[in-house]
């Protein structure tokens, strides 16, 4: 068969992407492209008018997502996406505000904001791309770098343990907590679309290859090889105990994925002149309702 040129004149994501900014800056094999595509698809799937979506990013390779999406988008400072988004949302509750940022941005320098936005249950969706390192600055140790992993600042192996992000998000009060990889595009897109529609602080962790900063130094190979690793080693278990979700990334380790938490808590309301309504003590964690799953909502 002789090679044929395939010309694509339009794509269904054209209205959601700033095509005049493409190609993007990401490396070959990077997982950020598919992660962004899942978000863009989820925006369409959510049924929420595109003009009501706002995307806020911090700084990092992931932080560049805001700049490629054709929605009102804010590329802020390292770690401060969540409080910036909080200001937008509280000042105009009609907006649907999503924070799209990296593991370092959201859980190291910006960790405190994650803590308090989740505690308040501000109506935001936070999507965290976890690539196990600081990609943008060239592959340094981050808060999710697995124990003993090699980075440019842990040349002898990481002495720190990684954060178990879904466990933390759930403990902080997030009303929806999921983890998928960029290989699981259908599930990821559905989880994001669900998170966008659900009121309150919703959180999705996205495992994503950074072949430059993390894959190669840790014998995971290039982007494609890390994708096969995700395929081989992933286990979907919505009911998995949250404290079992720590990630190791060693050759035979498992990656537990799923929609781990789906619950209701009163959504943050700015103070009015009347006393706030009485709140029952919040239930820390409640596995996804089997009936909801049966509806294949996710």
């Amino acid at each position: 068969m002789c090679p044929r040129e395939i010309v694509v004149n339009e794509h269904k994501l054209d209205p959601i992407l700033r095509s005049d900014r493409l190609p993007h800056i990401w490396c070959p094999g990077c997982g950020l492209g598919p992660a962004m595509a899942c978000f863009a698809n989820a925006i369409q799937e959510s049924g929420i008018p595109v003009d009501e979506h706002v995307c806020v990013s911090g700084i990092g390779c992931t932080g560049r997502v805001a700049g490629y999406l054709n929605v009102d988008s804010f590329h802020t400072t390292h770690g401060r996406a969540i409080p910036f988004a909080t200001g937008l949302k509280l000042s105009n509750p009609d907006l649907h505000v999503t924070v799209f940022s990296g593991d370092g941005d959201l859980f190291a320098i910006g960790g405190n904001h994650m803590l308090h936005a989740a505690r308040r249950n501000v109506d935001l969706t936070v999507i965290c791309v976890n690539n196990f390192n600081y990609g943008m600055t060239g592959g340094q140790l981050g808060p999710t770098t697995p124990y003993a992993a090699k980075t440019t600042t842990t040349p002898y192996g990481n002495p720190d343990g990684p954060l178990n992000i879904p466990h933390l998000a759930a403990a902080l009060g997030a009303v929806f907590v999921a983890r998928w990889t960029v290989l699981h595009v259908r599930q990821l897109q559905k989880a994001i679309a669900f998170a966008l529609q659900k009121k309150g602080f919703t959180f999705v962790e996205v495992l994503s290859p950074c072949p430059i900063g993390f894959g190669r130094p840790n014998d995971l190979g290039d982007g494609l090889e890390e994708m096969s690793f995700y395929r081989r080693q992933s286990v979907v278990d919505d009911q998995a105990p949250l404290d079992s979700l720590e990630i190791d990334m060693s050759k035979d380790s498992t990656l537990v994925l799923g929609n781990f938490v789906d619950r209701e808590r009163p959504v943050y309301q700015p103070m009015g002149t009347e006393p706030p309504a009485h709140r029952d003590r919040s239930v820390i964690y409640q596995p996804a309702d089997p009936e909801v799953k049966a509806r294949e909502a996710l």
Partner: protein
Amino acid sequence: MSENEEDRHVLTGRHFMNGDTACAEGAMAAGCSFFGGYPITPSTEIAERLARRLPEVGGVYIQMEDELASIASVLGASWTGARSMTATSGPGFSLMQENIGLGAITETPCVIVNVQRGGPSTGLPTLVSQADMMQARWGSHGDYPAVAYCPASCQEMFELTVLAFNTADLLRTPVLVMADEAIGHMTERVVIPDKSAIEHVARKRPHASAMDGQLPYESDGSMVPPMPRAGRGYRIHVTGLTHDERGYPATDAATHDKLVRRLAGKLTHFAPEIIKVEEVQLEDAEVVLVAYGSTSRSARHALTMLREEGLPVGMLRLITAWPFPGDRIAQLAERGCQFVVPELNLGQMALEVERNAHQSITRLNHAGGITMSPEQIAEAVRETMSCAREKSWSMSIS
């Protein structure tokens, strides 16, 4: 908005209130609808007052987890079209610096109040100082426009807060109110005028609901591009990276130079409109006191005392520290005036006076913790007069 709600914005009448409260009332009168803050002495009363007042008019008060979050939330709120502010003191002001730069490069109007206390570090939490004046100008990295007002009374805490919001919208940039503990905590009469008498500078908006080919960061010759708001279909991109007129990152030298020159140039362009000073008996003055904030109150007393002694003394009171009235200083220097600069720091605005006067000046400094007494200032003026003109003086008070 109901008649009643409107009334709650502007508490028209005569009041006896402290400076921090007057500042909060200035914000209310200016139509501020978002406050994100974190308590810190001696600014806390501003937050406390707004926590009561904003809910009365449907505004948002939120106590954030720290000052990094406070300023970030204030910038975010501004992009919805709201007038937003925060208030803090030295340690919190230090934490806010990075995002003050984000506000400058993304041209996000907002107001930041710093009720100065003694520093560095935790320093003197409850006591007065004026030692953040240079930080106000240069605290965030890079070149950017800085506007800072220096209230010297509770009445000015009200008025200059209103003005700060107007200037922020005029220039599309963060504006600082650099108060000090003595002014924040003193209580005096504050007259709040009728709503109709309160000036309101509207933020410049793009014409159509969509940008219609208009670029979001295209200066329309006025140095200040119109500001779209989120959620109105503009599909804006706002970034702290150097960006072109579409708002897209463009990190090359030419774009950077052009952008930074325009941003910093706002200050020179608008300086004649923004610079505010009070001139006291300068007509025949041979010695000019340059003072601001609480220190200017002592300087005014000193001036009265010295005039009674027959000495030709005047005062140039800085209402804006930034932009600095350098031309006025130069004129006075040309006329042969000597300068005495009392301030509660080790000589910050004195540098600006010296730089513009092209001559040595008398500095009167104390690191903070106590307001300067009129007698100390008077003495510095007397010594300056009795000394040979070219001799420079530096005095410290212990």
